[in-house]
């Protein structure tokens, strides 16, 4: 009994701080979105009636989806490749993957401004080859946000999948190859199914990360291509409309939790399937 009380005491400071400085502030921004003299969901109805808001919500979803798919397509084979290399090459490649991840996202977006801008690297390259006659406006577009966000999150997907691949028993692949599976088949039939949990976790991180991303859409998207996070900042900071910002805040929280829940359900389905097959 004494032990229990002591361990609870260890959790107390953190719990109090989280209540005071996270939950209370959250309640204080969300409360006005539901109460205007009496309880109302009018603010939310208003939000979802406005086609401009719906456009931003849809763009956020669309870009998150595209970014996740691109990251999976590029990241899974790369992680697989890394798992096959020698220890030395592998740690070098891991450093190459982690370096952008640990570099500030302002710098990473800045790099893409340098590449995609009107006088940027890509335009001058294409001009010098006479492929284009005039500079193309690549920056401040959905395309720029997508490429910048893929650049932001690809390392996360690679490292997550690599972590799962490392736990796969090498004998399984050898067995598959001994039994006549070719290279491609042993990948799709043995390795891919085994690393689906890792792909799901990685995808969830990329998807929710893109949903709530601020820096990249701000720097590469411009005012015409707003996403939820940049819209929240604009509403609160430039327009001073704090209630609307609160509405967007709750939508972002709910959507993030929903997406996490959906990915968890899918992951559990796969776990169960694995158990059934073992039984």
């Amino acid at each position: 009994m004494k032990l229990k009380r002591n361990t609870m005491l260890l959790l107390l400071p953190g719990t109090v701080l989280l209540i005071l400085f996270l939950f209370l502030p959250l309640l204080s921004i969300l409360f006005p979105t539901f109460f205007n003299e009496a309880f109302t969901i009018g603010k939310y109805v208003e939000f979802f009636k406005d086609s401009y808001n719906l456009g931003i919500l849809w763009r956020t979803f669309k870009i998150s989806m595209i970014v996740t798919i691109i990251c999976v397509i590029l990241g899974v084979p790369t992680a697989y490749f890394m798992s096959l290399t020698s220890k030395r090459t592998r740690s070098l490649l891991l450093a190459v993957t982690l370096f952008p991840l640990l570099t500030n996202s302002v710098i990473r977006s800045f790099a893409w401004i340098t590449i995609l801008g009107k006088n940027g690297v890509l335009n001058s390259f294409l001009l010098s080859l006479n492929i284009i006659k005039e500079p193309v406006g690549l920056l401040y577009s959905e395309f720029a946000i997508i490429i910048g966000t893929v650049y932001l999150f690809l390392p996360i997907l690679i490292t997550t999948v690599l972590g799962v691949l490392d736990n796969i028993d090498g004998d399984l692949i050898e067995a598959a190859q001994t039994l006549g599976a070719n290279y491609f088949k042993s990948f799709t039939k043995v390795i891919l199914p085994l690393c689906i949990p890792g792909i799901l976790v990685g995808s969830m991180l990329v998807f929710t990360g893109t949903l709530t991303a601020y820096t990249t859409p701000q720097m590469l998207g411009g005012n015409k291509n707003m996403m939820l996070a940049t819209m929240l900042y604009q509403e609160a900071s430039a327009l001073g409309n704090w209630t609307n910002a609160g509405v967007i805040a709750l939508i972002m929280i709910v959507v993030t939790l929903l997406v996490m829940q959906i990915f968890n359900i899918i992951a559990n389905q796969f776990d169960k399937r694995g158990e059934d097959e073992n039984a």
Partner: protein
Amino acid sequence: MRKKNIWLTLMASIVFIFLIIPLFIVVVTAFGESPSIQFPIKGFSLQWFGEVFKTKSFMRGMKTSLFISIWATVASIIIGVPAAYALARGTVKRRALLKNVFLSPTFVPGIVIGFALFQFLTIKLQMKIITSLFLGHFLISLPYIIRVVGSSLEHFDFSIEEAAWTLGCTKTKSFVKVVLPNISSGIFASFMLAFINSFNNIPVSMFLSGPGVQTLPIALMNHIEYNYDPTVSAMSVMLMLCTILLMWVIEKTLGLATIA
């Protein structure tokens, strides 16, 4: 024998080039002579590195960022390690719920945390911006400590601690003498992760900037909006060097794989 396929090698090579080229271009542009960003550069000059030190917002931002990130991470270690220990001992009721409470800052988007702290602490309670900024960074650091220290406690054999109790050690003493040394690499890893993440964070700090209070990433972002010049590239190169240094330290002590 696991075999590598030519297509796989090709695809992975493209991905690694994609990961490196943008940052490589930034590095090169820091050494040009022209006051506008060019690639390839004309001439060679180190003047932009001097400009970094003359740019007041960068210097002040660097100070603020280091101050906030170090203290926020230290605070999250002080609060987080005992909490992770209590959660791992498993004698606590509603462990899963409590763990989720401690991880809750990861479920709330950074920009929302920043907005909520700005509105409630700074506007309503009239707290200083720097206090709110510190608290925001503390909040986002805490989950790293809970996760990483928590997972190294999972590998810890608590019977060793119980042995210390039996041999007459007090609870506190055995925690300091027996448990802490066994999870020290976990604590170090979580410190590095939380520090890097806090130092690089933008969304949380976005609302929590004010006169004299601005983290380096925010200062950098504002600078780019008005002056798109090689000073930014030079600042980036210096930050990348710090990143390489930190990665080297992590590789030598824990191995990079532990933070991947």
